[in-house]
């Protein structure tokens, strides 16, 4: 089992390598080189020989392949990806400041999307069974379809305007007012931090929630048409028992898989939602750096987002391997097949 997990971990390595090559290619294609940026206007006061020395120091006289390995060993592995053009601090420091905010937002959204989406999908299946509930199910289906198709930031606008007008909700903290970084430590402040994250996280989760609800509905309905369900009902089991004991278990595997795959799209959506709600996370940093043409920052962010996605997919895959013996066997067979 341990060997299996280690093997799966090793599979992520080529992906990380590719990601770094792609990022580096983008670094190379950028206009101007780091020396131009560093020297700036002072360039005309410097002797060409001095600039040449600087270029050698940066390794710019080497071939792209050598430069890539230099960048990998000095930059990526030691966490030294250059300084922000904007405020001169190391980009890694700035990103690590913003990371906790984004993780808080995305984790809450993932939790909401998965939890609510599952309940939503299953209640659609259950409602479909009764003649009156059928209509309610149709309405829930329509709502899910619309939420899945509407742009998330647009819903964000509408929620913001409405929450600002409806005073029934009391003082809803509309925009994040806390500093970037980790949440405060004392309990009351921590509680208010949850309150702050709730609105943006709900808006962020809506699209995923709808997708998961539709997926759960389709997967469960598909499962209900299988013959073992007829057999189980024929044995005289109640429908609730069949649904919870037999059907749910079988339709759960693809749903867990979908939850693991949700992270990239939630991270992507968070860029827009962070902008709407002025949330001090990585997404807003990405947008700000795009406007400021802060190249080192953008590329470090690409690397960071990519690594987050690769590791989360790895984690989801491992959970599935641990959970589902069928998949484990299939994977083992594949490994065996590759050996022979």
């Amino acid at each position, binding site marked *: 089992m341990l060997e299996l997990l280690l093997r799966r971990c090793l599979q992520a390595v080529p*992906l990380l390598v*590719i*990601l770094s*090559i*792609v990022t580096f290619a*983008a670094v190379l294609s*950028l*206009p101007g080189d780091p020396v131009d940026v560093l020297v700036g206007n002072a360039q005309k006061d410097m002797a060409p020989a001095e600039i040449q020395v600087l270029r050698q120091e940066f390794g710019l006289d080497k071939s792209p392949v050598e430069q890539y390995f230099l960048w990998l060993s000095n930059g990526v592995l030691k966490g030294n990806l250059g300084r922000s053009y904007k405020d001169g601090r190391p980009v890694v420091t700035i990103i690590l400041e913003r990371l906790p905010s984004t993780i808080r937002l995305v984790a809450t959204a993932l939790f909401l999307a998965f939890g609510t989406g599952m309940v939503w999908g299953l209640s659609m299946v259950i409602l*479909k*069974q009764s003649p009156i509930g*059928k209509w309610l199910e149709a309405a829930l289906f329509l709502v899910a*379809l*619309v939420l*899945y*198709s*509407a*742009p998330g*930031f*647009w819903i964000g*606008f*509408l929620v913001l*305007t409405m929450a600002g007008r409806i005073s029934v909700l009391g003082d809803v903290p509309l925009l994040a007012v806390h500093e970037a970084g980790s949440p405060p430590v004392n309990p009351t402040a921590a509680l208010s931090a949850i309150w702050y994250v709730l609105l943006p996280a709900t808006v962020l989760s809506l699209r995923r929630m709808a997708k998961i609800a539709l*997926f759960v509905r*389709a997967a469960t*309905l*598909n499962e*209900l*048409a299988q013959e073992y369900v007829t057999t189980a*009902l*024929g044995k*005289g089991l*109640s*429908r609730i028992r069949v649904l919870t004991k037999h059907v749910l278990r079988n339709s759960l595997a*693809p749903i867990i*898989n*979908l939850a693991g*795959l949700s992270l*990239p*799209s939630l*991270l*992507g*959506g968070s*860029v*827009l939602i962070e*902008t709407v709600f002025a949330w001090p996370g990585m*997404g807003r940093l*990405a*947008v700000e750096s*795009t*406007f400021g*043409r802060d*190249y080192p920052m*953008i590329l470090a*962010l*690409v690397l960071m*987002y*990519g690594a987050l*996605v*690769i590791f989360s*997919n790895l984690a989801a895959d491992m959970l599935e391997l641990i959970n589902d013996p069928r998949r484990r066997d299939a994977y083992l067979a594949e490994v065996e097949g590759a050996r022979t």
Partner: protein
Amino acid sequence: MSQARFTTSDPRHSSIRMWVGAVLIALVFSSALLAPAIAPSKTLLWPVPVNLDAINLPPLTTGHFLGTDLLGRDILAEALWGARMSLVIGIVAAVAAVTFGGVWGALSAFFGGPIDTLMMRAVDGLLAIPNIVLLLTINTLLTANPFLHSFPEWSLRFLKVTSFSSGYLPLFTVIVVISATTWLEAARISRSKIHSILLEEYIYSARALGIGVIRMLFHHLLPNAAPVLLVEATLLVSDAILMEAGLSFLGLGLGPSTPSWGSMLTTAQSSLIEGNWWAVIVPGVLITTTVVGVNLVGEGILEGQGGKRQAT
């Protein structure tokens, strides 16, 4: 307890859903086609006149059925002209993405071996980057000055770029940026489809006849993968429309000169604080309607083909 039986999905429903989707798409398309008839204009840049005496008028005002935006432009006319831009962006970007991705995937499957691994790993690596982040990055790289200066003179004239206006250049950039992001999924789908086509007997006989790569690709492989790629293109249209809206919202889209639903949302954002909610509602509803329609039709066809879009 009622009879021990479960109600499962009714096949009739999926055909109803597809019809509903088709009707929605037909409505949006006809409104785009009718734009010049309902709101006449000679030019596509600033097609709706700015009128600063009539800003933020509410809906149902005489002459402005859906009200006006913060520049006094009629929202109905904007929406109709915007439908053209949004649909053009969606369709052109989707077709470009599927064409490039389709050929990429086909070549990858055809050559196999280390070339296949290399080509598909590159796709996997890029897919690890979330959509919007990739959009932002490609946008930054593409709009860096040296790229813009490398445009030949005639293309700038074609895109109506002058020293006062960037003309259709943003439209061009947005389409390139979106298709540069969405071709990845098409490449994966094309590769897996062509991989299975390559096992067919007619491919063996074509190979035995010594057919060239190009002919093999365009005469045998891609035409047989076309149904799958067509559905992917349909679904990508909705993705592209949503992406354009997102890009515009971030201020990287078309700008106020060229109306699209995304750029309408951007303008509307600034007037929301003055209580102009209708300027936000109209483009959002139109985007949602189009995306619902496209998704219903795309998934309906997919169901008919007995497939399922990969869960993402």
